[in-house]
C-alpha cells in the first residue's frame, strides 16, 4: 500500500478543485435537508403527526442515503473518466498496487461523506435532536460502513460501464430504485410479494434498516444481521469487481 496516503491526499486536492465537486457533494444534500426540514416543521402540527415522525427519523436517514448514493455515483463517474483518459493505465504502469489506486478513491469518498454528515448535523440541530452524542458517533460509523458497502457495488458498475457518459445514468438507474424499495419511504411489508423479495436482495434495504435503528438510539448489536448482510454484499461485489475490472 505504498503511496496510498500520498495518492489519497492528491485525489482530495483534485476533487476540491472541481468546480461542481464540492458543491454537489456537500452543499446539495445540506440544502435539500434544510429545505425539507423547514417545510416539514411548518407542516407538523402535533408531535404524533406523520410529518413529525418523518422529521424525527426519516429525514436524517434519507439525507444519509442520499450522501451514500452521491458518493457512489461520483466514484463510478471518476473511475470511468480515469479509464477513458488512460489515467488508470498510466498509474498501473507504476509500482503502485492496483488495490492502492482504488482504495485511495474509496477513502476520498468516505472522507467527503463524513464531512457532509458533520456539516449536516451542525446545521440541522434545530430540526431534530438525536438522543445522545453516542448515537451520533454510531450513526456516523453506520453511515461510513454502509457507504463503503455501497461503493463496492460502484466498483462493479465501474467495471462494466464502457464510457463516462454512461456511468452516471447507469449508477442512478441502479441506485434510485434501490432507494425506493429500501423501506425508507414506506414499510416493506406494504410492498407486493415480488417487490418484497427484490427489496430483500438489495444491500440498500439493510443500510436503511441499520441507519434508522441507530438513529432511534438502538445499539449496533441490535443490527448485527444488517451489518453482516452489508459486509457479505461488499465482499461479493468486491470479488466480482476485481474479477471483471478493466484498466483500459
Amino acid at each position, binding site marked *: 500500500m505504498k503511496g496510498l496516503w500520498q495518492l489519497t491526499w*492528491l485525489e482530495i486536492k483534485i476533487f476540491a478543485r472541481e468546480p461542481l465537486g464540492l458543491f454537489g457533494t456537500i452543499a446539495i444534500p445540506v440544502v435539500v435537508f434544510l429545505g425539507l426540514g423547514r417545510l416539514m416543521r411548518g407542516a407538523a402540527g402535533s408531535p404524533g403527526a406523520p410529518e413529525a415522525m418523518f422529521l424525527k427519523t426519516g429525514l436524517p436517514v434519507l439525507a444519509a442515503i442520499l450522501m451514500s448514493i452521491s458518493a457512489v455515483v461520483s466514484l463510478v463517474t471518476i473511475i470511468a473518466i480515469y479509464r477513458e483518459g488512460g489515467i488508470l493505465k498510466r498509474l498501473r*504502469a507504476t509500482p503502485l498496487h492496483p488495490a492502492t489506486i482504488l482504495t485511495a478513491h474509496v477513502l476520498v469518498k468516505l472522507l467527503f461523506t463524513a464531512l457532509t454528515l458533520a456539516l449536516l448535523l451542525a446545521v440541522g440541530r434545530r430540526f431534530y435532536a438525536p438522543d445522545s452524542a453516542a448515537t451520533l458517533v454510531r450513526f456516523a460509523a453506520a453511515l461510513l460502513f454502509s457507504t463503503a458497502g455501497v461503493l463496492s457495488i460502484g466498483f462493479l458498475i465501474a467495471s462494466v460501464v464502457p464510457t463516462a457518459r454512461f456511468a452516471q445514468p447507469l449508477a442512478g438507474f441502479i441506485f434510485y430504485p434501490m432507494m425506493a424499495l429500501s423501506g425508507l419511504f414506506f414499510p416493506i411489508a406494504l410492498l407486493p410479494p415480488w417487490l418484497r423479495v427484490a427489496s430483500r436482495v438489495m444491500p440498500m434495504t439493510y443500510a436503511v434498516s441499520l441507519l434508522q435503528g441507530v438513529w432511534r438510539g438502538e445499539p449496533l448489536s441490535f443490527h448485527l444481521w444488517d451489518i453482516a448482510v452489508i459486509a457479505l454484499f461488499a465482499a461479493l461485489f468486491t470479488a466480482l469487481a476485481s474479477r471483471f475490472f478493466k484498466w483500459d
Partner: protein
Amino acid sequence: MNDPVIRVSGIRKAYGPVVAVDEVSFEVRRGEIFGLVGPNGAGKTTTMECLEGLRSPDRGHVSVLGLDPFRAGTALKIKIGVQLQEAQLQKRLKVGEAVRFWASIYPSTLDPEALLEQLGLREKRNAWFMTLSGGQKQRLFIALALINDPEVVFLDELTTGLDPQARRAIWDLVRGIRERGKTVVLTTHLMEEAERLCDRVAIIEHGRVIDVDTPRGLVARHCPDRMVVVATADASARERFLVLPGVDAVDADGTSMTIRGRNPALVTDVIQCVSRHGMAVTDFHTTVPTLEDVFLRLTGHSIRD
C-alpha cells in the same frame, strides 16, 4: 555494451478473432534507441505493452532486464520508465504534484525539481495538467518516465500531434536519455523520426516484424538503387549516361534526366561523365532512398495509406 536488455521471442497476441501481434521476435541492446516502426494498427503498441508488463502475450516469451514483465510486477516496474500513447493525467493535477507524487512511489529517484528544470517545465510547476500544451504534456510524461532513473525507457508515439519544432525538441531529449547510458524503446509511424532518432528499427506490419536493422542497413539491403537527376540541354547526354557502368535506366523529362542504378559509385561516375564531355548542366541533385522507400518496397504501399 551490446548485450541484449530485452529479448522477445515468438510472441503472439489476439483480441478475439483479431491477431494484433503474430510471431514477433527481436532483441534490444543496452544503450541503444530501438524503434518499432509501422503504420497505425500494425501491432506496435500491443508489442510495447507486452514489454511494459501491461499485457501478457498469448504465446511466446518476453524478457526485460532478465525478468518476465507480466509476472515480475514491482521488481521490474521500478527499473523501467513508461510513456503511454495518448495518456492523460487528472485534469486538475499540478505538474509539480505529479512529479513529486511519482517520486514518492519509487524507491530511488532523480530530484523532481532538477528534472522539471531540465525538461523546461519549471515555470509550469503550479499549472494544472489540463492547461498544458501538447508539447508540455509530452515533456511532463517524459519527466514521469524518467523520475525513477530507469534502465529502460519505453516511449509510445511520443511526438504524435506535435508541431515540427516541438518534435525536434523532444528528439533532443530522447538523445539525451541515450547519452546517460539508458536504453530507449520507442514506437512511431513517422519514418523521418525513426530514421533520425533510432539506432536500429524493427519494421512492423500486420502484427509481424518484417525486418530489423539500422536505418542505413535497411536502406542498403532493400533499396540499393541510387538516383541522380541532371538537367542539361546536351542532346547526347542520355546516350552517354546509359553506357555508364551499373546504370539501369535513364528517364528523360524534357531536359531533366533521371539516372538510376545500383552501382555505389554512380554519383562519381555521373559527375566524371558530365565533366569529361563538358556538358552544360543547369541542375544536379541526387536522391538517396529513405526508410519510407524501404517500407514501400517491403509492403507494396506507403506507410500513410
